[in-house]
């Protein structure tokens, strides 16, 4: 009976937050669904009424649609590979006892504090600019032709910028996981004759599996929605070379003034996110089981 009371009380106490969350989620979702079936142009209020599935067919037949889907997946995948890989490397280094460990760790996290548009501006103008950027100077120093990063490799450039932003997050999660590995286990492996590389492969990496999974799942949520970096650096171009789904939705809905088609694109993004989520849970989700 005590448990029943506790349960009832708990339910009562949670009601406001659950209700707020539902409102928060359901209202925008319902509005999006509603708009996706409406004729709604910002440029012409005279066009209105039920649209059927025409908004959807308009959105998916956009010449940028398939490139955008591919680019969305490439950005998410590329950033995941870079942050997980480099994150493991950096975490391994930060796990070593070094002089000024505290300072190094704080500096390590700092890119995470830089807001995405600012980061994009810095990368665009200070680093990747083919005339006065740091990368160009480095190229010239070695006697090479400076690379026009954003012009020649727009998608790769965006992946690099976003990876730079997320690397601290991955490193931090992986570092804490690494620190939770018992010293005795590493010593046991050492006694068992495993050298540094084999200790990493057979002991440390399996221990990190769960942390890597967390990094992948959390980052994916954000990486499917990358927008600010594209807006500031390449504007989705050249052509559609760096247009991803969120940017295409912005193009169609806001720039094109077609709210109905934009809302339809939003629902396509929801479907894509779910497909990716199901795929990820199948692939790495079992690592989360205790």
């Amino acid at each position: 009976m005590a448990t029943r009371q506790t349960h009832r009380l708990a339910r009562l106490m949670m009601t406001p937050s659950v209700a707020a969350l539902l409102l928060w989620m359901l209202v925008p979702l319902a509005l999006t669904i509603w708009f996706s079936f409406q004729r709604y142009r910002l440029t012409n209020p005279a066009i209105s009424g039920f649209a059927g599935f025409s908004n959807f067919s308009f959105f998916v037949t956009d010449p940028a649609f398939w490139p955008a889907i591919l680019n969305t997946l490439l950005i998410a995948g590329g950033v995941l590979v870079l942050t997980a890989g480099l994150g493991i490397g950096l975490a391994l280094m930060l796990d070593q006892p070094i002089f000024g460990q505290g300072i190094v760790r704080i500096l390590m996290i700092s890119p995470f504090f830089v807001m995405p548009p600012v980061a994009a501006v810095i990368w665009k103008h200070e680093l990747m600019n083919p005339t006065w950027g740091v990368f160009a100077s480095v190229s010239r120093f070695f006697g090479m032709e400076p690379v026009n990063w954003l012009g020649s490799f727009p998608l790769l450039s965006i992946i690099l910028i976003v990876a730079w932003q997320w690397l601290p997050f991955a490193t931090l999660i992986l570092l804490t996981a690494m620190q939770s590995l018992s010293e005795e286990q590493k010593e046991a492996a050492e006694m068992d004759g495993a050298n540094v590389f084999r200790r990493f492969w057979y002991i440390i990496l399996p221990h990190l599996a769960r942390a890597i999974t967390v990094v992948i799942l959390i980052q994916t949520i954000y990486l499917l929605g990358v927008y600010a970096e594209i807006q500031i650096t390449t504007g989705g171009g050249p052509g559609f070379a760096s247009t991803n789904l969120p940017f295409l939705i912005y193009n169609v809905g806001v720039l094109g003034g077609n709210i109905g088609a934009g809302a339809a694109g939003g629902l396509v993004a929801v479907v894509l996110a779910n497909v990716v989520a199901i795929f990820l849970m199948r692939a790495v989700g079992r690592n989360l089981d205790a």
Partner: protein
Amino acid sequence: MGSITLEHVNKTFGGHQVIPDVSLEIKDGEFVVFVGPSGCGKSTLLRLIAGLEDTTGGHIKLDGVDVTDKGPAHRGLAMVFQSYALYPHMTVRQNIGFPLKMANMDKAAAEQKVNDAARVLNLTDYLDRKPRMLSGGQRQRVAIGRAIVRQPKAFLFDEPLSNLDAALRVNMRIEITELHQQLKTTMVYVTHDQVEAMTMADRIVVLNAGRVEQFGTPLELYKAPANKFVAGFIGSPKMNFFEGAAAGKYQAASVGVRPEHIRISRDAGDWQGRVGVAEHLGSDTFLHVHVEGAGLQTVRTEGENSFNPGDEVWLTPDPARIYRFDGAGLAL
């Protein structure tokens, strides 16, 4: 073969000297226990032998070969850790086989060895389980299995039983002792529990503040402790000590008598006192007696006796079993 020789080994951690100077000679096939209170450096000494810590000075020899500068993997020793240190993501089979895999042993031969070890340790039915599905005793056995497959020169045990409950500890104590009789490999075993030391060891090293207080067989330590520290540490319940006038009678700075060597009587004896707490173990009773001018003393009597808390009693030590110590605590 697996003789271990320590020559003037010392170890300093950041200016703090943990082990001042230890020289030991452990013979091939011997079961040697390092025992001492926590912080006495017994684990550090074991880790020095294992190669997990570097010596600050001195030499460590295995079978007469200097291994002081060799890494832990190249000394041919196996270690069982306090936390077992099993690899949680591997099955029992993979755990036991890990050292063989690291030695790049042929798969079929490794499989054979793992099966043999599992049979010796009664783990055959658990080979495909993960460590988290095993009980404490089984985990302990997997850790031992991982150690024995390599056929090391010597086994090093770092307080392997301290995570087990009391009943299991007694069982594992016997299992490890039997294993030693079977394998006849040198074993070095660290514990803070003098009962484990007394029951398992061929010879015991009593350590205190990084110094070897005494190195001898369990009965040597019991019968002829070299100093007051060993006398107080070995034996359960602890030895009673008397100082001042009571000790002066025996021309010593202090004298010690074990609880089992004191006679208790209601009428007459050397020391008068009053019974405080009585601990009944069934087979024995430990009476804690408040003795005039000498504080609380323990007396071991038969299980069924007529003494009750508050009784006035007399204690008489067995004169042949009195240990005398000088002012520095050394046995006279």
